[in-house]
């Protein structure tokens, strides 16, 4: 009885024929050949991507590949007086919910206890956490360094909001089509459509002005028509906009001739907004 059982067990466990061994060997060989083909070779869905990244001069993780321009901003904390004009002009021009502005201005203190004002647009990171986490590529890098939204693609999962280190993203919790904008018309007129309910939105560096301006042969950051509303309205010139790729642009020159820093640079976000600290230091 017991020996029979043992025999039966043995039989059930080991049943490899020569054919099986050959099959396994063939599968293993196939896998070895397929692996490089699928990961780095011409069949790989990632192959193209890696190639593109390696070729890009400003390789930044999965980040942006820059073209001719790289739009950026310099905010001079030493000059900012905290008037909030930038916030108001932005809210009017982009028809933003006044209670949840894209652009914020906050009173701050240096370590010596002196007040300064920090204003913050979207920083248009070249290695943007929001772009990496979006499940549908509704937010993406443009070749000119801008991080923009496709409001027709966004599913409203709000993961980008959670991933953004700078609290720069706003969700449309409700339909705002009947809402009045308290900053219109005193601070500007809406130049873009209101975003629908259920999508995430953010500062665009007034992308509509940049694109339209370039088509007319204007220079964003120099010609007012092609420059973000917040920059134009600043009464003390604390915000400067321009092409970081152009060494002669005002932003590039300011960065070259001043001490600058970027917000939470240690996260590796590679932001396109540079800050000039207050003269006494932070």
């Amino acid at each position, binding site marked *: 009885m017991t020996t029979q059982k043992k025999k039966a067990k043995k039989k059930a466990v080991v049943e490899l024929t020569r054919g099986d061994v050959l099959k396994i060997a063939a599968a293993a060989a196939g896998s070895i050949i397929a692996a490089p083909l699928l990961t780095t070779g011409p069949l790989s*869905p*990632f192959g193209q*991507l890696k190639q593109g990244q390696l070729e890009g001069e400003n390789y930044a993780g*999965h980040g942006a590949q820059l073209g001719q321009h790289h739009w950026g901003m310099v905010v001079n904390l030493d000059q900012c007086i905290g008037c909030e004009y930038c916030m108001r002009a932005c809210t009017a021009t982009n028809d933003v919910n006044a209670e*949840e502005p894209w652009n914020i201005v*906050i*009173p*701050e*203190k*240096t*370590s010596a206890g002196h007040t*300064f004002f*920090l204003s*913050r647009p979207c920083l248009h990171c070249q290695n943007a*956490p929001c772009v*990496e*986490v*979006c*499940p*549908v*590529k*509704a937010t993406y890098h443009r070749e000119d360094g801008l991080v923009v939204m496709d409001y027709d*693609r*966004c*599913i*409203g*999962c*709000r*993961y980008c*909001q*959670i*991933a*953004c*280190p*700078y*609290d720069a*993203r*706003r*969700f*449309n*919790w*409700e*339909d705002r089509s009947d809402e009045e904008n308290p900053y219109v018309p005193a601070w500007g007129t809406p130049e873009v459509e209101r975003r629908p*309910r*259920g*999508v*995430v939105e953010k500062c665009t560096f007034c992308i509509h002005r940049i694109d339209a301006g370039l088509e007319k042969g204007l220079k964003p950051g120099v010609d007012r028509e092609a420059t973000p509303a917040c920059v134009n309205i600043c009464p003390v010139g604390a915000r400067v906009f321009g092409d970081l790729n152009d060494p002669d642009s005002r932003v590039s020159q300011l960065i070259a001739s001043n001490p600058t*820093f970027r*917000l*939470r640079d240690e*996260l*590796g976000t590679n932001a396109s907004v540079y*800050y000039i*600290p207050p003269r006494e230091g*932070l």
Partner: protein
Amino acid sequence: MTTSTLPRKLFQLPFSRAFLLWMGFLAVLLVIGFYAAIQVLLKGLVITNLSDAVPWGLWITIDLSAIALGAGAFTLSAIVYIFGIKRLQPVIRLAVLIGFAGYTSAMVTLLMDIGRPDRFWHPWVFWNVHSVLWEVTMCITIYLLILITEFAPVIVDAKFFDGWTRLRAFGHALHKFTPFLAVLGLVISLLHQSSLGATYGVIKSRPIWFKPSMPIMFVLSAIAAGPAVTVGVAYVLEWILGRRTIPHDVLRIITRFSGVGLLAYGYIKFWDMAAVTYYGSTPGVSKAFSLLQQHTPYTFSFWVGEVILGILVPAILFLVPRFNKNPAAAVVGALSAMIGIIVHRWNVTVGGLFVPLSYSPGTVFELPIGSYTPAPIEWGVAVLVIGYALTVITLAVRFLPLFEKREH
């Protein structure tokens, strides 16, 4: 012929008063739930208590918990079909059913949670391979298809399909793929059960999230608690139906497995805590935890909810032989582990969002600590999801041959 009539007799559960009462109760849950869901769809997420500071809340917690509690399906399928422990076969149908209920519940919740439910299909069309959430979406979709395929043979065995010989043959033919599906299911599940944790673990700017242990803890806790839920449901069904559903020795093996799994999870959790808050603490993390301790019942819910109820109590009930033999102890243990999972997912999601971002270079400005209590409407949708899951399980138990012995 005998095989098709005998089990059905065994299984007859008449429309007794108790059953009708239970169905009535489920109907009430569903009515409340549908009302809440329609309100949300009509008015938008503004009627929830979610905000730009805390954009994820109760629903994401439910979503994560439902997927974790449905993990019994892939774990037990892998044990039976990959590791060849055929003794546990009788539990597979129930495990797959609970997995199906869990995963579809998660999808319903997600559909309510996204701002544009009409665009739910976008991740399938517009790929972002760098996004953890994209990977999770794809995996959950594929895994749901696997669950449906695994469950198809059970559905076609229902009395309703008695005349449909072709369909039944097709359903049974699908069963031949079960081992293959188990392998695929294991791979896909290990991926998304962990990446649900990675969803939080990769966010660099959130101090209490950003750590590599996040995916490990998510997948381990799911592997441990998922099978326990299956056991708990099996025992409860046995009390309701008044007959053995799944052999007790099988259930006892699974609770033991679950107990060991919970201890493994506890071990990782211990070292995670030691590394993050003691040995390798950073100013950001320390500050985040002290904020949570001051403003939220985080410490209490962590120790009582996650550690005592989530790990210690069920581990003892599952592993000490005296309790292991006791069905009531197994049910209590399963409930306890379930609470542990839910509290953990809540603490990760909401706790992590309560800690305000800090990006200002100055010394004064701080965003306020987040605040969030689910709105009644959010509880309403929660009721919908719970009612839905219970309805699926009830109908399946009533109409499908879940516990028959069939030769395959």
